[in-house]
């Protein structure tokens, strides 16, 4: 029983922080800046967790994640401006469009392994970015898309910063919960088996190609959702926000946080968004300091701030005995 409580305690505390403590603090000090930073952390946490599923759990090095984030942002923004379809349409459409595109590009790529897969996703990311930049007739090219209509839910405009924060936090929490259930289940174990030895998994009857296509598509869906949230909270999207740099930033988040660890992805996102903001006072050297922190954390904590093994045992406790508690903490995960 105490195991159960301990396991439930962490997620409860996180929810308490996200839905009570942070908004209370934000409302009390009432500063738009902190709202903005909090929203960015949430959006990037979703991006990092969605990448965690592909790269962390399934072990496929994905270098084009930002492109699907961009597709989501553009779909939401263009539906909002050109078709006058609001947030309620734009949000699922963004996710579905990103997922549909991911599905199409996944069909030929998912037979590739290791470095070849990484290069293929790099190319996909660059192609999508180039299309966003150069397909002027549809995406407005480098001019970007301005989204004037704010968020409206069932006819009620959501305008105050705190309401927008709750909306973003709620959607991100829901998405992360779905990704958590996918990642920490027999499905997630199948993904990990792909990562550890895909030929062995294949021999054991796991349909590896299908699994890869599924996980790639699901991950892109949530990247698209993150994109829609970015488009609606910022009001302006341009291709520059969805380039290779952003893909690498998200990748760095999950590596620093701990490859294969879902809580690690969230911690990594929070760290890499908050750190540059905290260091603003340092001036031009802040990027160097962020680099040093990343370097040091990789050097001393190669498994990340919250590595996969500790993350998994944390989650196992949450599930009680329902989900294969290991007899001992056997060494699995990224080494």
């Amino acid at each position, binding site marked *: 029983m105490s195991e159960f409580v301990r396991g439930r305690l962490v997620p409860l505390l996180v929810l308490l922080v996200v839905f009570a403590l942070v908004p209370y603090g934000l409302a009390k000090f009432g500063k738009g800046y902190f709202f*903005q930073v909090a929203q960015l952390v949430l959006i990037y946490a979703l991006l990092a967790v969605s990448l965690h599923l592909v790269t962390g759990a399934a072990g496929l090095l994905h270098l084009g994640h930002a492109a699907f984030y961009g597709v989501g942002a553009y779909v939401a923004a263009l539906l909002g401006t050109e078709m006058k379809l609001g947030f309620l349409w734009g949000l699922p459409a963004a996710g579905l469009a990103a997922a549909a595109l991911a599905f199409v590009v996944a069909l030929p790529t998912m037979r590739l392994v290791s470095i070849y897969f990484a290069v293929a996703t790099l190319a996909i990311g660059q192609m999508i970015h180039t299309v966003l930049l150069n397909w002027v007739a549809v995406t407005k090219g480098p001019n970007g898309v301005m989204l004037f209509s704010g968020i409206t839910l069932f006819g009620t405009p959501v305008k105050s910063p705190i309401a927008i924060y709750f909306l973003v936090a709620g959607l991100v929490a829901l998405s992360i919960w779905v990704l958590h259930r996918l990642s920490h289940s027999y499905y997630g174990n199948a993904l990990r088996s792909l990562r550890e030895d895909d030929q062995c998994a294949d021999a054991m009857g796991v349909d590896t190609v299908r699994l890869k296509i599924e996980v790639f598509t699901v991950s892109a869906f949530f990247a698209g959702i993150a994109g829609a949230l970015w488009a609606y909270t910022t009001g302006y999207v341009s291709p520059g*926000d969805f380039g290779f740099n952003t893909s690498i930033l998200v990748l760095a988040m999950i590596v620093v946080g701990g490859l294969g660890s879902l809580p690690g992805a969230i911690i990594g996102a929070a760290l890499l968004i908050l750190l540059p903001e905290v260091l603003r006072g340092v001036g031009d050297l802040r990027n160097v300091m962020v680099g040093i922190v990343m370097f040091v954390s990789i050097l001393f904590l190669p498994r990340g701030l919250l590595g996969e093994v500790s993350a998994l045992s944390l989650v196992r406790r949450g599930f009680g005995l329902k989900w294969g508690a290991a007899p001992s903490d056997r060494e699995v995960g990224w080494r």
Partner: protein
Amino acid sequence: MTLTRRHLVALALAAPAAFALPAAAAETVKLGYQLPLTGNTAQYGQDFKTAAEIALARFNASGRIPAKVEIVFEDSRSDAKEGVTIARKFVDDEKIVGVLGDFTSGVSMAAAQVYKEAGMPQLSQTASHPDYTKISEWQFRNITTQAGEGPYNADWMVAKGYKKVAVIAEQTDWGQSVTKYFADEIAAKGGKVVLTEYFNRGLPDFRSLLTKIQREKPDAIYTGFFYEDAANFLKQMKQLGIAIPVYSTSAAHNQKVIELAGADAEGLSLTTNFLPNSPKPEVKEFVAEWVKVRGAEPGQFPAQAFDAVNIMLEAVVKTYPKSTRAAIRDALAATKDFPGVTGSTTFGADREPVKQLSKVRIVGGVFTPVAD
């Protein structure tokens, strides 16, 4: 628990930053300046910072108002998410009454959504996107858009008898406006654009583009690029032995073109509103100060930034001691015949600057004013 030690490492690394935050000075008028001080476009941001520091030092020494003005510089890295965050930060600081920047249109426009909502005057020295000033009554800019420069260049080229023109521009919102306004005017004057091509900024090899241009046999080439691309383009053009006159915009008006391309830059014609060798006293003073800090003559963009800061400071003077955000906005909108280093500036009702353009050509390694 393993978490503790890990957190301690992160905290220990983050702690010195907390103490480095600058303390706010009392009794000062504060302005914000968001610009890329690091990242891919840092060279421009660093130029703006120098220009702003020169303008600010001169202003604070003049004693025109009994208080000091302070500019808070924030690094946006030309990244929209940083730009928006900075915008929120500036808006939160009640002492900040006006904002300068950002550098690129993309970041300026993302930040503009925040300024529009909060009611903060924003004056960008370089945002040239056609829709930037249309965002709200709070957006101003101190750069002539291609709506003015394109037709001016087209008329110039038609007057020289160049009717068949190839147009190339970088693939940015600005590049798009370069080709559009130029093409409209040259068609109206009986000329013809025989080729329009876009390239990505920082393209190392222009040879295939140059071959394409050569095939069309144009009378002249009109270009929308910045100094790095300008230098590369001109060098490779000479290497291929192509001798077609090249025209460009004020964006290429930078001493670095001559430094990087050397003799190959000879003959490049462009429009500008800043002449570093002008005899006007305000220009002489700015150029002398700039040379003292940087050791070389300033180009077009630092001059625009210098004027933008001065226009903002002028608005502070006009409204002091009641310099609120709304008052500064109204004062900016009322700017008329401001004598800057980029010529006299008036803001139209659309918050666009109206400026006089001049013709310049590189002759003997110097930007030389020319009549035709």
